[in-house]
């Protein structure tokens, strides 16, 4: 592991899912946008492989994918020798996901949901990431999950692009 040199960086993650967006298969779409300081470095917009039965479930899938991307990115930055500035800040617009992942209690029955839960929980415990709520009005990753109306699209685009 190289000794970190130079200025430190901070990771910000926006994760969102549009629950059952596909009107034929009722699968959800994951949208993830990762910033390192002010720069958008990674982005993902993908239909989810599993069929979720609740907004909570689909948001949790998105958050888990985001967590895994952050883990990889943190490892890469460490190998670059870049100092990391605390855990990554994750913004998720579902209140119950935020609560569930920050308070260690769970009532999840489905196997893959519970895997998602434990993955996110363990990363929070390890100090890789911390999760907070961001209202969907300002959640930039909405750009990657829903076909937006004109003004919202341009408002969110401006947060990412110039």
């Amino acid at each position, binding site marked *: 592991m*190289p000794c970190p040199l*130079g200025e430190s960086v901070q990771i910000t993650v926006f994760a969102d899912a549009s629950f059952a967006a596909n009107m*034929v298969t009722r699968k959800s779409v994951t949208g993830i946008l990762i910033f390192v300081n*002010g720069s958008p*470095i990674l*982005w993902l917009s993908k239909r989810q492989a599993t069929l979720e039965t609740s907004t909570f479930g689909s948001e949790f899938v998105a958050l888990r994918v985001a967590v895994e991307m952050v883990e990889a990115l943190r490892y890469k930055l460490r*190998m670059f020798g870049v100092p990391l500035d605390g855990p990554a800040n994750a913004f998720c617009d579902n209140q119950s996901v935020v609560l569930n992942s920050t308070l260690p209690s769970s009532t999840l029955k489905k196997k893959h949901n519970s895997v998602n839960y434990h993955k996110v929980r363990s990363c929070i415990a390890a100090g890789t990431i911390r999760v907070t709520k961001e209202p969907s009005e300002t959640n930039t990753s909405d750009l990657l999950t829903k076909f937006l109306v004109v003004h919202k699209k341009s408002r969110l685009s401006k947060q990412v692009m110039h």
Partner: protein
Amino acid sequence: MWKDGTATWETLTAMKEMNMARCAEYAERLGFADEPAFSYWVKFALKKRNRLLKKVFCRKRSNRFKYGIAVPRTVKEAYALDTANGSDFWAKAIDKEMSNVMVAFKPLDLGASPPDDYKEIPLRLIFDVKMDFSRKARLVAGGHLTDPPEALTYSSVVSRDSVWLAFMLDKLNGLDMIMTDIGNAYLNAEVTKKYYAIAGPELGELQGLTVVIVRALYGLKSAGAAWNHHLANELMQLEFEPVPANPDGWRRAHVKSDGTKYYEYVFVYVDDLLCLSADPVGRIIQPLSDLGYRCKDVGKPTRYLGAEIAEHEIRGADGTVHKFWSMSAEQYLKLAIQTVEDQQGDSFGKCRGVKTPVESGYRPELDETDELDDDKAKYYQSLIGILQWIVELGRIDIALEVSTMAQFNCNPRTGHLRNTLRIFMWLKGHIKSKLVMDCCKRDMD
């Protein structure tokens, strides 16, 4: 009815198994393709047959003209074209390539037979016209005739997000960034396999002699890997360390003149080098040139994989101006939109000023318009391909639209094509958007 004149009844399943396409044609011709026993497969069998046939007919030789300039296929043709035009463009291109490539050959004495364990390999020149109409020749070896090596054959490349990170780190640590590409890169590397060739007319005075190939010629299967390995060794000599988990990234600790410690980086994309340092020319480019590399186009980065790189100024709240690297796909977009406009004609121009990339409230999965025929479907797929590359180049704002439309790649409908074209129209109005690699930390409230 059999060849010997006898006739028997065979089951439809057996006939279908034997020759599906002919069966389908027969049913279609006699007009019972809509019967229950046929309706479910005849349509698909015919569609598949048409696709296969088209693929076969597509395998014709590629165009011999580029930008209105005739492109030769052989050395003889090249010289003939020059004589016909009264110019020496092709001859010059050949001379230039050959003067670079000569180091790759070691001629044997006339009549000497090549060593036993060496294999013969054909050589030929490939001709092309570049964007600025200059003529280019490239000597390649017929690597397709050799056995593939067991190990890695290609030259690996640095991942895209690492490069975007590099642009951010550059400004964050106040470094300078220099890009260069290495001329005839592969020829710097020594070849590991044993090959020889009989020199053709392009090799000038060596014509007819047997030459042993000592450097990694373009076209050899292991050439990419040989070059990659070679450059890695040289970088290691310059005390660079490979960055784990990130192929083709290299790092070296250094101290700035003001005493701050930082890392210098080199990122390799086959023969393109991206160098970050307080003094990239003096500390990286110069040592590399001393090692015998021909560093071309040394300068600040302007393009990377088709995206334009530029410095973007942002005025901070306190009035100070910050400079950051920015990436935009403007040129690639212009070219793509122009092509689509030319193909679509008036119908494209009519829909000017669209507000959103797809029609509002459009649900592509509920689209029940007609399926596209094969030509149009292929066109649709090519459009999606272009759009996916545009997203890779940093157009995050259409990422969702493109990935959604790409779900219909295998069986697109008219409505899907219309909306994909609409994405292009929308892009036309938003051509200048770019990603800025801002290195300031965000305020977390």
